[in-house]
Protein backbone atom coordinates (compact mmCIF):
# COMPACT_ATOMS: atom_id res chain seq x y z
CA UNK A 1 0.00 0.00 0.00
CA UNK A 2 1.07 3.58 -0.64
CA UNK A 3 2.27 5.51 2.41
CA UNK A 4 -0.37 8.21 1.89
CA UNK A 5 -3.04 5.50 2.10
CA UNK A 6 -1.53 4.60 5.48
CA UNK A 7 -1.87 8.19 6.58
CA UNK A 8 -5.54 8.21 5.56
CA UNK A 9 -6.16 4.89 7.30
CA UNK A 10 -4.39 6.26 10.35
CA UNK A 11 -6.96 9.07 10.60
CA UNK A 12 -9.88 6.68 10.11
CA UNK A 13 -8.73 4.16 12.66
CA UNK A 14 -7.77 6.94 15.09
CA UNK A 15 -11.34 8.24 14.99
CA UNK A 16 -12.62 4.74 15.85
CA UNK A 17 -10.05 4.23 18.59
CA UNK A 18 -10.44 7.64 20.28
CA UNK A 19 -14.16 8.30 19.83
CA UNK A 20 -13.36 11.77 18.43
CA UNK A 21 -14.49 12.55 14.86
CA UNK A 22 -12.00 12.79 12.00
CA UNK A 23 -12.65 16.54 11.81
CA UNK A 24 -11.95 16.93 15.52
CA UNK A 25 -8.71 15.01 15.12
CA UNK A 26 -7.69 17.16 12.14
CA UNK A 27 -8.52 20.27 14.17
CA UNK A 28 -5.68 19.43 16.56
CA UNK A 29 -3.21 19.89 13.71
CA UNK A 30 -1.28 16.85 15.02
CA UNK A 31 -2.17 14.15 12.46
CA UNK A 32 1.06 14.28 10.49
CA UNK A 33 3.27 14.57 13.52
CA UNK A 34 1.63 11.57 15.22
CA UNK A 35 1.79 9.46 12.08
CA UNK A 36 5.50 10.18 11.80
CA UNK A 37 5.96 9.35 15.48
CA UNK A 38 4.57 5.89 14.83
CA UNK A 39 6.80 5.32 11.80
CA UNK A 40 9.79 6.38 13.87
CA UNK A 41 9.06 4.20 16.89
CA UNK A 42 7.39 1.04 15.63
CA UNK A 43 8.89 -1.78 13.55
CA UNK A 44 8.00 -1.43 9.88
CA UNK A 45 6.64 -4.97 9.81
CA UNK A 46 4.19 -4.25 12.64
CA UNK A 47 3.10 -0.99 11.00
CA UNK A 48 2.56 -2.64 7.62
CA UNK A 49 0.53 -5.53 9.03
CA UNK A 50 -1.47 -3.16 11.20
CA UNK A 51 -2.53 -0.97 8.30
CA UNK A 52 -3.11 -3.96 6.03
CA UNK A 53 -5.49 -5.47 8.58
CA UNK A 54 -7.14 -2.11 9.31
CA UNK A 55 -7.71 -1.69 5.58
CA UNK A 56 -9.38 -5.09 5.34
CA UNK A 57 -11.42 -4.42 8.47
CA UNK A 58 -12.74 -1.04 7.29
CA UNK A 59 -13.37 -1.98 3.68
CA UNK A 60 -15.15 -5.28 4.08
CA UNK A 61 -18.66 -4.45 2.91
CA UNK A 62 -20.21 -7.06 5.22
CA UNK A 63 -18.92 -5.21 8.30
CA UNK A 64 -21.24 -2.76 10.01
CA UNK A 65 -20.09 -0.32 12.70
CA UNK A 66 -20.77 -2.73 15.52
CA UNK A 67 -18.81 -5.53 13.87
CA UNK A 68 -15.87 -3.20 13.24
CA UNK A 69 -15.83 -2.11 16.88
CA UNK A 70 -16.05 -5.70 18.10
CA UNK A 71 -13.18 -6.82 15.90
CA UNK A 72 -11.07 -3.80 16.98
CA UNK A 73 -11.71 -4.68 20.62
CA UNK A 74 -11.02 -8.40 20.28
CA UNK A 75 -8.20 -8.51 17.74
CA UNK A 76 -6.34 -5.18 17.94
CA UNK A 77 -6.19 -4.17 21.56
CA UNK A 78 -3.99 -6.85 23.06
CA UNK A 79 -0.41 -5.83 23.93
CA UNK A 80 0.76 -8.66 21.73
CA UNK A 81 -1.18 -7.44 18.68
CA UNK A 82 1.08 -5.36 16.37
CA UNK A 83 3.30 -4.71 19.36
CA UNK A 84 0.51 -2.81 21.16
CA UNK A 85 0.16 -0.25 18.38
CA UNK A 86 -3.62 0.30 18.68
CA UNK A 87 -3.33 0.94 22.40
CA UNK A 88 -0.43 3.29 21.85
CA UNK A 89 -2.39 5.24 19.24
CA UNK A 90 -5.08 5.94 21.83
CA UNK A 91 -2.52 7.08 24.39
CA UNK A 92 -0.83 9.16 21.70
CA UNK A 93 -3.98 11.13 20.82
CA UNK A 94 -5.17 11.54 24.40
CA UNK A 95 -1.89 12.57 26.02
CA UNK A 96 0.35 13.70 23.17
CA UNK A 97 2.95 11.27 24.55
CA UNK A 98 4.72 8.29 23.04
CA UNK A 99 5.37 6.07 26.02
CA UNK A 100 6.47 8.54 28.68
CA UNK A 101 7.98 11.01 26.20
CA UNK A 102 6.16 14.23 25.29
CA UNK A 103 6.37 14.53 21.50
CA UNK A 104 6.31 18.32 21.31
CA UNK A 105 4.95 21.38 23.07
CA UNK A 106 2.06 21.31 20.58
CA UNK A 107 1.24 17.67 21.35
CA UNK A 108 1.02 18.46 25.07
CA UNK A 109 -1.47 21.25 24.36
CA UNK A 110 -3.45 19.22 21.82
CA UNK A 111 -3.92 16.11 23.98
CA UNK A 112 -7.55 15.00 23.71
CA UNK A 113 -7.70 14.40 27.45
CA UNK A 114 -8.12 18.14 28.02
CA UNK A 115 -11.09 18.30 25.64
CA UNK A 116 -12.52 15.13 27.11
CA UNK A 117 -12.38 16.70 30.57
CA UNK A 118 -13.64 20.11 29.33
CA UNK A 119 -10.54 21.71 30.75
CA UNK A 120 -7.21 23.23 29.67
CA UNK A 121 -3.62 22.00 29.63
CA UNK A 122 -2.10 23.60 32.76
CA UNK A 123 0.53 26.18 31.97
CA UNK A 124 -0.12 26.20 28.24
CA UNK A 125 -3.56 27.67 27.56
CA UNK A 126 -5.10 30.57 29.41
CA UNK A 127 -8.64 29.97 30.55
CA UNK A 128 -8.78 33.43 32.15
CA UNK A 129 -8.98 34.34 35.81
CA UNK A 130 -12.04 32.97 37.52
CA UNK A 131 -13.19 31.00 34.49
CA UNK A 132 -13.03 27.83 36.55
CA UNK A 133 -16.07 29.02 38.46
CA UNK A 134 -18.12 28.92 35.23
CA UNK A 135 -19.58 25.87 33.55
CA UNK A 136 -17.44 25.12 30.48
CA UNK A 137 -19.13 26.25 27.25
CA UNK A 138 -18.59 22.79 25.80
CA UNK A 139 -20.71 21.18 28.50
CA UNK A 140 -24.31 21.00 27.38
CA UNK A 141 -26.50 22.68 29.98
CA UNK A 142 -29.44 20.33 29.54
CA UNK A 143 -27.56 17.29 30.81
Amino acid at each position, binding site marked *: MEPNTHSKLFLEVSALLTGFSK*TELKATGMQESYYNTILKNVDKEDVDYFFLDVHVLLHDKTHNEKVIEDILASKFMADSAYNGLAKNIIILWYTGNWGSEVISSASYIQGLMWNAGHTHPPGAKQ*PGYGSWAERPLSVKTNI
Partner: protein
Amino acid sequence: MENKLFQKSNPNRQKLIKPISDLDINEEVVSIATDTASFTDNELNLKTAAVSNKSAKGMTLKMSKKDVKNYIKDLKHLQDCLRTALQLELSTIPPYLCGLYTIKEGSNVEAAALIRSVVVEEMLHMVLVSNILNAITDPKTIKKGDKLFNVKEIIPNYPTPLPGGIVPEVPKGMPPFKVHLLKFSREALDEFSTIERPSNPQAPITGHFDSIGQFYEAIRYGLLRLNETTPGGIFIGDPKRQITAEHYYGSGGKITKVVTYEDAEEAIGEIVGQGEGIDGTIATEQVLFGEDIEYAHYFKFQEICFGRMYSANDTNFQMPVKSIPTGKPFTVSWSSVYNMKANPKMKDYEHNPELLEKAIEFNKVYVQLLNGINDAVSGNPELLIKGITVMYDLKYKALELLNIPLENGECAGPTFEYVAL
Protein backbone atom coordinates in the same frame (compact mmCIF):
# COMPACT_ATOMS: atom_id res chain seq x y z
CA MET B 1 8.43 39.41 26.15
CA GLU B 2 7.20 40.08 22.67
CA ASN B 3 4.84 42.76 23.86
CA LYS B 4 7.43 44.77 25.68
CA LEU B 5 8.30 46.93 22.72
CA PHE B 6 4.74 48.17 22.48
CA GLN B 7 4.10 48.97 26.07
CA LYS B 8 3.44 52.52 27.00
CA SER B 9 6.24 52.54 29.54
CA ASN B 10 8.83 51.86 26.86
CA PRO B 11 10.75 55.13 26.44
CA ASN B 12 11.99 54.05 23.01
CA ARG B 13 8.48 53.96 21.66
CA GLN B 14 7.67 57.14 19.84
CA LYS B 15 4.24 58.57 20.43
CA LEU B 16 2.27 59.31 17.31
CA ILE B 17 -1.22 60.27 18.32
CA LYS B 18 -2.62 63.66 17.55
CA PRO B 19 -4.55 65.51 20.19
CA ILE B 20 -8.14 66.12 19.15
CA SER B 21 -8.88 69.63 18.01
CA ASP B 22 -10.94 72.08 20.03
CA LEU B 23 -14.55 72.36 19.05
CA ASP B 24 -16.28 75.69 18.67
CA ILE B 25 -19.88 75.12 17.79
CA ASN B 26 -20.64 78.79 17.27
CA GLU B 27 -17.96 79.32 14.69
CA GLU B 28 -19.27 79.25 11.15
CA VAL B 29 -17.27 76.81 9.17
CA VAL B 30 -17.41 76.80 5.43
CA SER B 31 -16.43 74.18 2.96
CA ILE B 32 -12.77 73.39 3.24
CA ALA B 33 -12.45 71.87 -0.17
CA THR B 34 -9.25 73.23 -1.61
CA ASP B 35 -7.22 72.83 -4.70
CA THR B 36 -5.09 69.80 -4.08
CA ALA B 37 -3.10 69.94 -7.27
CA SER B 38 0.00 70.78 -5.30
CA PHE B 39 0.28 67.22 -4.08
CA THR B 40 2.97 65.47 -5.97
CA ASP B 41 3.30 61.82 -6.68
CA ASN B 42 5.05 59.88 -4.00
CA GLU B 43 8.10 58.16 -5.36
CA LEU B 44 7.19 54.95 -3.57
CA ASN B 45 4.63 53.00 -5.48
CA LEU B 46 2.61 51.95 -2.48
CA LYS B 47 -0.97 52.11 -1.38
CA THR B 48 -0.50 55.26 0.62
CA ALA B 49 1.11 56.89 -2.37
CA ALA B 50 -1.68 55.71 -4.63
CA VAL B 51 -4.15 57.29 -2.27
CA SER B 52 -2.47 60.67 -2.22
CA ASN B 53 -2.12 60.57 -6.00
CA LYS B 54 -5.79 60.04 -6.25
CA SER B 55 -6.63 62.90 -3.96
CA ALA B 56 -4.36 65.03 -6.07
CA LYS B 57 -6.72 64.41 -8.92
CA GLY B 58 -9.63 65.48 -6.73
CA MET B 59 -11.19 62.04 -6.55
CA THR B 60 -11.71 61.85 -2.81
CA LEU B 61 -14.87 63.08 -1.23
CA LYS B 62 -15.87 63.80 2.33
CA MET B 63 -18.57 65.51 4.31
CA SER B 64 -18.18 69.24 4.92
CA LYS B 65 -17.29 70.46 8.39
CA LYS B 66 -20.61 72.26 8.62
CA ASP B 67 -22.50 69.10 7.77
CA VAL B 68 -20.50 67.18 10.35
CA LYS B 69 -21.37 69.82 12.95
CA ASN B 70 -25.08 69.65 12.23
CA TYR B 71 -25.23 65.92 11.51
CA ILE B 72 -26.80 64.89 14.82
CA LYS B 73 -30.45 65.99 14.83
CA ASP B 74 -31.72 65.14 18.30
CA LEU B 75 -31.09 62.95 21.34
CA LYS B 76 -32.71 59.91 19.73
CA HIS B 77 -30.48 60.34 16.68
CA LEU B 78 -27.43 60.73 18.92
CA GLN B 79 -28.26 57.50 20.75
CA ASP B 80 -28.79 55.71 17.44
CA CYS B 81 -25.42 56.98 16.22
CA LEU B 82 -23.73 55.69 19.36
CA ARG B 83 -25.31 52.28 18.75
CA THR B 84 -23.96 52.47 15.21
CA ALA B 85 -20.57 53.37 16.67
CA LEU B 86 -20.78 50.19 18.77
CA GLN B 87 -21.42 48.18 15.63
CA LEU B 88 -18.60 50.03 13.89
CA GLU B 89 -16.11 49.10 16.62
CA LEU B 90 -17.35 45.51 16.65
CA SER B 91 -17.17 45.21 12.85
CA THR B 92 -13.40 45.78 12.95
CA ILE B 93 -12.68 43.07 15.52
CA PRO B 94 -13.31 39.90 13.41
CA PRO B 95 -11.08 41.01 10.50
CA TYR B 96 -8.26 41.90 12.90
CA LEU B 97 -8.72 38.58 14.73
CA CYS B 98 -8.59 36.67 11.42
CA GLY B 99 -5.32 38.45 10.62
CA LEU B 100 -3.99 37.56 14.05
CA TYR B 101 -5.18 33.94 14.28
CA THR B 102 -3.88 32.99 10.82
CA ILE B 103 -0.31 33.89 11.80
CA LYS B 104 1.40 30.58 12.57
CA GLU B 105 2.80 30.11 16.06
CA GLY B 106 6.31 31.51 16.31
CA SER B 107 6.31 33.57 13.10
CA ASN B 108 5.57 37.27 12.55
CA VAL B 109 6.05 37.94 16.24
CA GLU B 110 6.10 41.73 15.92
CA ALA B 111 3.16 41.85 13.53
CA ALA B 112 1.11 39.59 15.82
CA ALA B 113 1.88 41.76 18.84
CA LEU B 114 0.89 44.91 16.93
CA ILE B 115 -2.41 43.44 15.71
CA ARG B 116 -3.17 41.99 19.14
CA SER B 117 -2.70 45.39 20.75
CA VAL B 118 -5.15 46.90 18.25
CA VAL B 119 -7.79 44.24 18.92
CA VAL B 120 -7.60 44.82 22.64
CA GLU B 121 -8.11 48.54 22.05
CA GLU B 122 -11.11 47.94 19.79
CA MET B 123 -12.71 46.00 22.64
CA LEU B 124 -11.98 48.96 24.89
CA HIS B 125 -13.61 51.28 22.36
CA MET B 126 -16.83 49.25 22.52
CA VAL B 127 -16.83 49.71 26.27
CA LEU B 128 -16.11 53.46 25.98
CA VAL B 129 -18.95 53.98 23.49
CA SER B 130 -21.24 52.05 25.83
CA ASN B 131 -20.21 54.34 28.67
CA ILE B 132 -21.13 57.42 26.62
CA LEU B 133 -24.45 55.88 25.58
CA ASN B 134 -25.27 54.95 29.17
CA ALA B 135 -24.29 58.44 30.35
CA ILE B 136 -26.91 60.09 28.12
CA THR B 137 -29.67 57.54 28.68
CA ASP B 138 -32.36 58.57 31.17
CA PRO B 139 -32.63 55.65 33.66
CA LYS B 140 -36.41 56.15 33.67
CA THR B 141 -36.56 55.09 30.01
CA ILE B 142 -34.83 51.75 30.67
CA LYS B 143 -37.15 48.83 31.24
CA LYS B 144 -36.03 45.94 33.40
CA GLY B 145 -34.16 43.37 31.33
CA ASP B 146 -33.44 45.85 28.50
CA LYS B 147 -30.04 45.36 26.89
CA LEU B 148 -27.89 48.15 25.50
CA PHE B 149 -27.67 46.46 22.11
CA ASN B 150 -29.06 43.45 20.26
CA VAL B 151 -26.34 40.82 19.80
CA LYS B 152 -28.04 39.17 16.83
CA GLU B 153 -28.47 42.47 14.99
CA ILE B 154 -25.08 43.97 15.78
CA ILE B 155 -23.06 41.12 14.20
CA PRO B 156 -22.13 42.20 10.66
CA ASN B 157 -22.40 39.95 7.63
CA TYR B 158 -18.95 39.93 5.96
CA PRO B 159 -18.01 41.36 3.53
CA THR B 160 -19.70 44.44 4.97
CA PRO B 161 -19.46 48.19 4.31
CA LEU B 162 -18.33 50.14 7.39
CA PRO B 163 -21.42 50.89 9.52
CA GLY B 164 -22.38 54.55 9.98
CA GLY B 165 -22.24 55.59 6.34
CA ILE B 166 -18.47 55.79 6.45
CA VAL B 167 -17.03 55.46 2.96
CA PRO B 168 -13.24 55.51 2.92
CA GLU B 169 -11.62 56.42 -0.36
CA VAL B 170 -10.29 53.56 -2.46
CA PRO B 171 -7.99 53.69 -5.49
CA LYS B 172 -9.74 54.72 -8.67
CA GLY B 173 -11.57 51.89 -10.41
CA MET B 174 -11.87 49.79 -7.26
CA PRO B 175 -15.33 48.80 -5.96
CA PRO B 176 -16.63 50.66 -2.87
CA PHE B 177 -14.80 49.67 0.30
CA LYS B 178 -16.02 46.61 2.17
CA VAL B 179 -14.56 44.86 5.19
CA HIS B 180 -13.58 41.25 4.40
CA LEU B 181 -12.38 38.46 6.68
CA LEU B 182 -8.91 37.68 5.30
CA LYS B 183 -5.84 35.72 6.34
CA PHE B 184 -2.72 37.69 7.34
CA SER B 185 -1.65 39.12 3.97
CA ARG B 186 -0.85 42.37 2.17
CA GLU B 187 -4.50 42.63 1.16
CA ALA B 188 -5.54 42.32 4.80
CA LEU B 189 -3.07 44.99 5.90
CA ASP B 190 -4.30 47.31 3.14
CA GLU B 191 -7.83 46.73 4.41
CA PHE B 192 -6.83 47.41 8.04
CA SER B 193 -5.03 50.62 7.05
CA THR B 194 -8.05 51.77 5.05
CA ILE B 195 -10.33 51.19 8.04
CA GLU B 196 -8.13 53.29 10.31
CA ARG B 197 -6.89 55.89 7.82
CA PRO B 198 -7.30 59.46 8.98
CA SER B 199 -9.65 61.80 7.16
CA ASN B 200 -8.10 63.78 4.35
CA PRO B 201 -8.66 67.49 4.97
CA GLN B 202 -8.06 68.30 1.32
CA ALA B 203 -10.80 65.97 0.10
CA PRO B 204 -13.75 67.66 -1.63
CA ILE B 205 -17.10 67.74 0.05
CA THR B 206 -19.78 65.09 -0.21
CA GLY B 207 -22.69 63.72 1.80
CA HIS B 208 -20.87 60.95 3.64
CA PHE B 209 -18.10 60.51 6.18
CA ASP B 210 -14.72 59.50 4.79
CA SER B 211 -13.26 58.18 8.04
CA ILE B 212 -14.17 56.82 11.45
CA GLY B 213 -12.71 59.99 12.96
CA GLN B 214 -15.15 62.18 11.02
CA PHE B 215 -18.09 60.10 12.25
CA TYR B 216 -16.96 60.48 15.86
CA GLU B 217 -16.46 64.21 15.31
CA ALA B 218 -20.15 64.45 14.36
CA ILE B 219 -21.05 62.58 17.56
CA ARG B 220 -18.87 64.91 19.57
CA TYR B 221 -20.50 68.02 18.09
CA GLY B 222 -23.89 66.47 18.73
CA LEU B 223 -23.08 65.73 22.37
CA LEU B 224 -21.82 69.28 22.95
CA ARG B 225 -24.71 71.04 21.17
CA LEU B 226 -27.50 68.93 22.70
CA ASN B 227 -25.95 69.18 26.16
CA GLU B 228 -25.89 73.00 25.91
CA THR B 229 -29.36 73.37 24.44
CA THR B 230 -31.16 70.84 26.66
CA PRO B 231 -32.33 72.21 30.04
CA GLY B 232 -30.43 70.29 32.72
CA GLY B 233 -28.13 68.79 30.10
CA ILE B 234 -28.19 65.32 28.58
CA PHE B 235 -25.77 63.62 30.95
CA ILE B 236 -28.44 62.23 33.25
CA GLY B 237 -27.54 58.52 33.04
CA ASP B 238 -27.13 56.21 35.98
CA PRO B 239 -23.44 56.26 37.02
CA LYS B 240 -23.80 52.69 38.30
CA ARG B 241 -24.05 51.54 34.67
CA GLN B 242 -20.57 52.84 33.89
CA ILE B 243 -17.72 50.41 33.27
CA THR B 244 -14.66 51.58 35.19
CA ALA B 245 -11.05 50.44 35.34
CA GLU B 246 -11.80 47.96 38.12
CA HIS B 247 -14.13 46.02 35.80
CA TYR B 248 -11.73 45.82 32.92
CA TYR B 249 -8.58 43.85 33.22
CA GLY B 250 -6.32 43.03 30.34
CA SER B 251 -5.52 46.72 29.85
CA GLY B 252 -5.07 48.26 26.42
CA GLY B 253 -5.78 51.94 26.98
CA LYS B 254 -7.72 53.78 29.57
CA ILE B 255 -11.30 53.26 30.72
CA THR B 256 -13.06 56.58 31.13
CA LYS B 257 -16.09 56.78 33.38
CA VAL B 258 -18.51 59.14 31.62
CA VAL B 259 -20.74 61.41 33.72
CA THR B 260 -20.14 64.80 32.06
CA TYR B 261 -19.59 66.15 28.57
CA GLU B 262 -15.89 66.54 29.34
CA ASP B 263 -15.66 62.84 30.20
CA ALA B 264 -17.38 61.95 26.91
CA GLU B 265 -14.93 64.14 25.02
CA GLU B 266 -12.05 62.36 26.73
CA ALA B 267 -13.52 58.96 25.82
CA ILE B 268 -13.91 59.97 22.17
CA GLY B 269 -10.39 61.36 22.23
CA GLU B 270 -9.18 57.96 23.38
CA ILE B 271 -11.14 56.16 20.66
CA VAL B 272 -10.19 58.40 17.76
CA GLY B 273 -6.67 59.04 19.01
CA GLN B 274 -5.97 55.30 19.15
CA GLY B 275 -7.43 54.80 15.71
CA GLU B 276 -6.06 57.58 13.61
CA GLY B 277 -6.15 60.99 15.21
CA ILE B 278 -8.66 63.67 14.18
CA ASP B 279 -7.84 65.43 10.97
CA GLY B 280 -5.85 68.62 10.71
CA THR B 281 -2.15 69.09 11.08
CA ILE B 282 -0.26 69.40 14.32
CA ALA B 283 3.10 70.63 15.38
CA THR B 284 5.81 68.02 15.49
CA GLU B 285 6.66 68.91 19.09
CA GLN B 286 3.28 67.67 20.19
CA VAL B 287 3.79 64.46 18.29
CA LEU B 288 7.22 63.82 19.63
CA PHE B 289 6.84 64.62 23.27
CA GLY B 290 3.28 63.64 24.07
CA GLU B 291 3.38 61.79 27.35
CA ASP B 292 0.58 59.32 27.85
CA ILE B 293 -0.30 58.39 24.30
CA GLU B 294 0.32 55.36 22.14
CA TYR B 295 0.80 54.70 18.47
CA ALA B 296 -2.45 55.04 16.57
CA HIS B 297 -3.73 51.91 14.84
CA TYR B 298 -3.17 53.31 11.38
CA PHE B 299 0.53 53.72 12.10
CA LYS B 300 0.82 50.28 13.68
CA PHE B 301 -0.56 48.77 10.47
CA GLN B 302 1.83 50.91 8.43
CA GLU B 303 4.69 49.44 10.45
CA ILE B 304 3.62 45.93 9.48
CA CYS B 305 3.15 46.94 5.81
CA PHE B 306 6.70 48.24 5.71
CA GLY B 307 8.20 45.69 8.12
CA ARG B 308 9.70 48.58 10.05
CA MET B 309 9.02 50.41 13.30
CA TYR B 310 8.66 54.17 13.34
CA SER B 311 11.70 55.89 14.73
CA ALA B 312 12.01 59.05 16.77
CA ASN B 313 12.91 60.95 13.60
CA ASP B 314 9.73 60.07 11.76
CA THR B 315 7.72 63.22 12.15
CA ASN B 316 5.90 63.48 8.86
CA PHE B 317 2.38 63.07 10.12
CA GLN B 318 0.76 65.87 8.21
CA MET B 319 -2.34 65.16 6.22
CA PRO B 320 -2.82 63.35 3.96
CA VAL B 321 -0.75 60.66 5.62
CA LYS B 322 2.25 59.62 3.62
CA SER B 323 4.72 58.97 6.36
CA ILE B 324 6.97 55.98 6.00
CA PRO B 325 8.64 54.38 9.01
CA THR B 326 12.43 54.50 9.11
CA GLY B 327 13.12 52.76 12.43
CA LYS B 328 14.16 49.25 13.39
CA PRO B 329 13.25 46.64 10.73
CA PHE B 330 11.49 43.37 11.61
CA THR B 331 10.65 40.25 9.66
CA VAL B 332 7.23 39.90 8.10
CA SER B 333 6.57 36.49 6.55
CA TRP B 334 3.50 36.38 4.34
CA SER B 335 3.93 32.61 3.91
CA SER B 336 4.02 31.46 7.57
CA VAL B 337 0.28 31.79 7.57
CA TYR B 338 -2.78 29.52 7.61
CA ASN B 339 -4.21 29.73 4.11
CA MET B 340 -7.71 30.63 5.30
CA LYS B 341 -10.49 30.87 2.73
CA ALA B 342 -11.68 34.50 2.62
CA ASN B 343 -15.01 35.37 4.29
CA PRO B 344 -15.78 31.86 5.56
CA LYS B 345 -19.45 31.08 6.22
CA MET B 346 -21.22 28.27 8.05
CA LYS B 347 -23.06 27.68 4.77
CA ASP B 348 -19.75 26.67 3.14
CA TYR B 349 -19.44 23.83 5.64
CA GLU B 350 -22.88 22.30 5.23
CA HIS B 351 -21.51 19.39 3.20
CA ASN B 352 -19.33 18.45 6.17
CA PRO B 353 -21.44 18.17 9.35
CA GLU B 354 -18.42 17.68 11.62
CA LEU B 355 -16.77 20.82 10.28
CA LEU B 356 -20.06 22.71 10.55
CA GLU B 357 -20.22 21.64 14.19
CA LYS B 358 -16.76 23.17 14.77
CA ALA B 359 -17.87 26.42 13.12
CA ILE B 360 -20.98 26.50 15.30
CA GLU B 361 -18.87 25.86 18.42
CA PHE B 362 -16.70 28.86 17.54
CA ASN B 363 -19.75 31.06 16.92
CA LYS B 364 -21.27 29.98 20.22
CA VAL B 365 -18.17 31.21 22.01
CA TYR B 366 -18.32 34.45 19.98
CA VAL B 367 -21.99 35.05 20.83
CA GLN B 368 -21.27 34.19 24.46
CA LEU B 369 -18.50 36.82 24.47
CA LEU B 370 -20.84 39.47 23.04
CA ASN B 371 -23.61 38.50 25.46
CA GLY B 372 -21.12 38.93 28.31
CA ILE B 373 -20.16 42.41 27.13
CA ASN B 374 -23.82 43.29 26.57
CA ASP B 375 -24.78 42.18 30.09
CA ALA B 376 -21.90 44.17 31.52
CA VAL B 377 -22.82 47.42 29.75
CA SER B 378 -26.52 46.90 30.51
CA GLY B 379 -26.25 47.52 34.23
CA ASN B 380 -24.00 44.69 35.44
CA PRO B 381 -20.45 46.03 35.02
CA GLU B 382 -19.03 43.26 37.21
CA LEU B 383 -19.94 40.72 34.51
CA LEU B 384 -17.34 42.13 32.11
CA ILE B 385 -14.53 39.94 33.43
CA LYS B 386 -16.67 36.86 32.84
CA GLY B 387 -17.05 37.95 29.22
CA ILE B 388 -13.36 38.59 28.76
CA THR B 389 -12.32 35.12 29.94
CA VAL B 390 -14.26 33.77 26.96
CA MET B 391 -11.80 35.58 24.66
CA TYR B 392 -9.22 32.87 25.22
CA ASP B 393 -11.57 30.12 24.14
CA LEU B 394 -12.33 32.07 20.98
CA LYS B 395 -8.72 31.74 19.84
CA TYR B 396 -8.49 28.02 20.52
CA LYS B 397 -11.73 27.34 18.66
CA ALA B 398 -10.51 29.44 15.72
CA LEU B 399 -7.22 27.52 15.56
CA GLU B 400 -9.11 24.23 15.43
CA LEU B 401 -10.94 25.47 12.31
CA LEU B 402 -7.70 26.72 10.73
CA ASN B 403 -6.19 23.23 11.11
CA ILE B 404 -8.93 21.71 8.93
CA PRO B 405 -8.01 21.65 5.23
CA LEU B 406 -10.60 22.38 2.56
CA GLU B 407 -10.24 21.55 -1.12
CA ASN B 408 -7.81 23.59 -3.31
CA GLY B 409 -5.18 24.05 -0.59
CA GLU B 410 -7.20 26.45 1.54
CA CYS B 411 -8.29 25.82 5.11
CA ALA B 412 -11.45 26.49 7.08
CA GLY B 413 -11.72 29.51 9.37
CA PRO B 414 -13.89 31.22 11.97
CA THR B 415 -17.09 32.65 10.47
CA PHE B 416 -18.12 35.17 13.18
CA GLU B 417 -21.84 34.60 12.58
CA TYR B 418 -24.77 34.64 14.98
CA VAL B 419 -25.96 31.33 16.40
CA ALA B 420 -28.55 30.78 19.12
CA LEU B 421 -26.97 29.49 22.35
